[in-house]
C-alpha cells in the first residue's frame, strides 16, 4: 500500500518540485492549493482581457500548480481555508500591529494552517503525511526522536518559520527540498519540464500584496482600535505626533516624520499610551529578550536549567550566541553573549544549536543591561 501524502502547493517552483519528487518516490501524492487570502474585487466585463485573466495572482498560481499535477499525474484540488486563515492568521496579524508589535504571519500560517488545519484535512483524506516546499530538514535520531534541522542551502533556509512544530507534527511531515539548493531545485524543475521552473520568488506577505501593512491594518480596524500618540526621545521629550502605533516597528528608521540632527530609530512602542520612543542606533542595542509561547521541538530541554544556544530574532538575521532558560509557563529568558541588535516584539525568536532547531517563541520585550537583573 502506497503511503499517501498531501502536498501543499502554492504554484511556485519549490512546492512544485517537492510534489514531483514525492511522486517520483512512489508516494500516493495528493496536491492541494490552499485558498487563503480574501478575493480581490472581481474584474468587470469591460476591463482589458489580459487584466480579466490575471487580476488575481493566486488564480494564475493555482493554474500553475494544476499544470504540475497534470504533468506529474497526481490528483490536485483547490481547498478553501479562507475563513480559517482570516480567523487564525489575519486577525492575529492585525491585533499584533494594534498592540505595538510586529507579527510574522508566515510563522502563524505554518503553525495554524499548514501544520494544523491542513493536517486535519490530510487525515480526512486518509493521508499519512503533509509535505511542503519549505527548505528545512527533518531527521530521526537513534533515540527515535525527530530533529528539525536547517536546510543545506543556507541562503534559502526556512527552519526559522517552523519552530512551532513538535514531535507529533515532525513525525508526519516531509520537506523534500531540505537537502537541495535553490539552483538544484530549479534545475530539477526544468528537467521535469515543470512550467514553474523559472518563476520568480514571492516576497511579500501573501495577503498584503502591495506591502502597505499600515493601510491593511486600518481597513481591518475600527478608528477606536487605533492608537495615535506622540513620538518621543529616550528622555521622554515629544518630537512629533503619529496616527497610530501600528505604523511602526522597532528598529525602523524611515517615516518617523521627525527632523533631527541624528539618525533616529524606533526603540520602543508603548501601545497603551500610544507613545513611540526613538533613539540613536546605539540606543537600540539590547542584551537579551523575553519570549513567550515557547515551543520546544524536543521538550526534554525544558529543564529550567540554563542552556547555551544560538538565537535568531529575525528571519534575515544571523543566529547569535546566547544563554537561555525556559520556565514552566513557556517563557524564555535569553541573554545574548554580547550586545545584540534591535529586538522587535512580536517577531519570532528561534533557538538553534548548530544546524538544529531546538525551539522558539514570540518576542515579548527586549532586555537591556539595566533591566536584565
Amino acid at each position, binding site marked *: 500500500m502506497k503511503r499517501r501524502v498531501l502536498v501543499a502547493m502554492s504554484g511556485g517552483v519549490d512546492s512544485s518540485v517537492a510534489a514531483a519528487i514525492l511522486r517520483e518516490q512512489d508516494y500516493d501524492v*495528493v496536491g492541494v*492549493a490552499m*485558498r487563503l487570502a480574501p478575493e480581490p474585487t472581481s474584474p468587470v*466585463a469591460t476591463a482589458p482581457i489580459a487584466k480579466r485573466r490575471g487580476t*488575481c495572482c*493566486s*488564480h494564475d498560481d*493555482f493554474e500553475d500548480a*494544476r499544470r504540475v499535477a497534470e504533468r506529474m499525474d497526481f*490528483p490536485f*484540488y*483547490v*481547498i*478553501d481555508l479562507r*475563513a*480559517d486563515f*482570516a*480567523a*487564525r492568521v489575519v486577525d492575529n496579524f492585525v491585533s499584533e500591529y494594534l498592540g505595538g508589535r510586529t507579527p510574522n504571519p508566515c510563522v502563524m500560517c505554518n503553525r495554524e494552517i499548514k501544520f494544523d*488545519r491542513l493536517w*486535519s*484535512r490530510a*487525515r*480526512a*483524506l*486518509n493521508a499519512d503525511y503533509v509535505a511542503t516546499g519549505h527548505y528545512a530538514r527533518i531527521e530521526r535520531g537513534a533515540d527515535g526522536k525527530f530533529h528539525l534541522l536547517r536546510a543545506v542551502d543556507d541562503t534559502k533556509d526556512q527552519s526559522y518559520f517552523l519552530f512551532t512544530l513538535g514531535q507529533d507534527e515532525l513525525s508526519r511531515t516531509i520537506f523534500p527540498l531540505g537537502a537541495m539548493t535553490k539552483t538544484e531545485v530549479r534545475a530539477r524543475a526544468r528537467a521535469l519540464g515543470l512550467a514553474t521552473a523559472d518563476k520568480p520568488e514571492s516576497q511579500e506577505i501573501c495577503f498584503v500584496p502591495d506591502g502597505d501593512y499600515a493601510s491593511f491594518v486600518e481597513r481591518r480596524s475600527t478608528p477606536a482600535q487605533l492608537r495615535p500618540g506622540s513620538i518621543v526621545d529616550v528622555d521622554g521629550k515629544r518630537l512629533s505626533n503619529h496616527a497610530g502605533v501600528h505604523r511602526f516597528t522597532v528598529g525602523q528608521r524611515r517615516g518617523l516624520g521627525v527632523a533631527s540632527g541624528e539618525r533616529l530609530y524606533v526603540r520602543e512602542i508603548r501601545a497603551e499610551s500610544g507613545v513611540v520612543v526613538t533613539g540613536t542606533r546605539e540606543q537600540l542595542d539590547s542584551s537579551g529578550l523575553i519570549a513567550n509561547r515557547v515551543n520546544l521541538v524536543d521538550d526534554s530541554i525544558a529543564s529550567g536549567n540554563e542552556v547555551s544556544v544560538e538565537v535568531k530574532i529575525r528571519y534575515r538575521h544571523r543566529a547569535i550566541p546566547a544563554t537561555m532558560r525556559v520556565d514552566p509557563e513557556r517563557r524564555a529568558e535569553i541573554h545574548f553573549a554580547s550586545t545584540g541588535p534591535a529586538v522587535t516584539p512580536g517577531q519570532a525568536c528561534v533557538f538553534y544549536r548548530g544546524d538544529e532547531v531546538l525551539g522558539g517563541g514570540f518576542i515579548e520585550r527586549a532586555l537591556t543591561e539595566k533591566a536584565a537583573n
Partner: protein
Amino acid sequence: MSIYLDHNAGAPLRTEASAAISRLLQDAGGNPSSVHRAGQRSRRALEAARAQVATVIRPADTRQVVFTSGGTESNNLAIFGAITAASRRRKIISSTIEHSSILAPLAELERRGFNVVRVAPDSDGRIDPARVIAALDSETALVTLGLANSEVGTIQDLAPLASASKASGASFHVDSAQAVGRIPVDVDALGCDLMTLSGHKLGAPAGIGALYIRDSAKFAPTIFGGPHENGMRAGTPNLLGAVAFGAAAEAAMSTISAESQRISSLAASLLARLREAIPGLRLNGPLVGRLPNTINLTFPGVLGESMLIALDLEGVEVSMGSACAAGAVEPSHVLRAIGRSVADARSSLRISLGWSNTAEEIDAVAAIIPAVWRRVAAAEPLSEASAR
C-alpha cells in the same frame, strides 16, 4: 474503477453516441450547406439527428429545433433573442435558483438597465407560478425558468405560465437541460416559445445543444453569418456533435419509462441506506415532484469540500455547488435560496445518477459514503473549522 455520480454536470458518453460519431468519421462529409453530394450527405445526417433530438420534447415541427454549442449558448440565444425582439419592453422575470447560464446573462442585462425580477422558491425549491404571473405586466419582455433544477432536482409546475405570458405579450423560455430524457417533456403541451436542450446531460459529448424556437416566438438572432439553422443561429453546425446528440436522445427516449423507474429505485435505495447509516442526514428538495436521479444531501458535521475530495480519492465522483474560477467549490446558491444556511450549504453534496450506473455501483457507494463521512467527521469536525 471510479463510480460516476455526477450526471447532472455531464453524463458519460453513451455507446450509441460514440458509435454514431465513429460512423460519421468513416464517412467524412462536407458542409451541410454545400451543394455537392458530400454536403448533401452531411445535410441528411444533420436532419436525421435533428429529428432524433426533437423526440425528447415532441414538437409538431422538428425544424423548430436549432442546434447550438450547448445549453449555455441556448440560454443566451433565448434570452438575448427574446429581449432583442421585444425592443421596448425592459423587464425580465426569472427565479433565484436558475443555472449560471441564465443568472449571468440576467445580471449582465440588469447592468445594462433591464429590470430583472427573480422570484424566490419555497423551501423545496418550487417556484409558485402565481408569483410569476403576479409579476407579469405589459413591460415584461421575457419569462425564463428552468423546468427541473440542476442542484436539488425540483420539477417546476410551468404549465400555467404559457398562457399568462402570452396574454401579457411576454416570451416564455424554459431551460429543460436537466429534464429532457429523464422525465417526459412535451414542448407543445407546455406551450413555451423557447426551450433549451443540452447534449452532454443525455450522454452526448459536451459542445452540442439545441434551442427549440416556436414559429410564433418573438425571437431575433444574435449570431450573424451564413444562413445555417434557418437563419436562427449562424455558423456551420457541429455535425459530429449533432449526430451524437441524436443517437443519445434516441437511446434515452427508447427506454425512458423503464430507465426512469430503474434510476428512481436506485436513488431511493441509496437514499434509504445513507439515511440509516448517517444520523441527521438531510435531503434537500422535495420528496415528490423531483427528478428521479438527483439527491442533494446535507451531511452533518462535515465540510462538503472534504467529503467531495475524500470520495473522489475513493473513486466516487459527486459534486458540490459550482466551481469558482480558481477551481475551489462555492456553496450552492440554490441551497441558499431555498433557505439553507451557508454552513448547511457548505456541508452538502449532490449525487446525480444516470444511464451508466448499476445496482452494484449503488451497493458499493452505499457503503463507501458512510465510511468516508465517519472518517471526515472524526478527522476534521466542523467545530474545528472556523466559524463561517
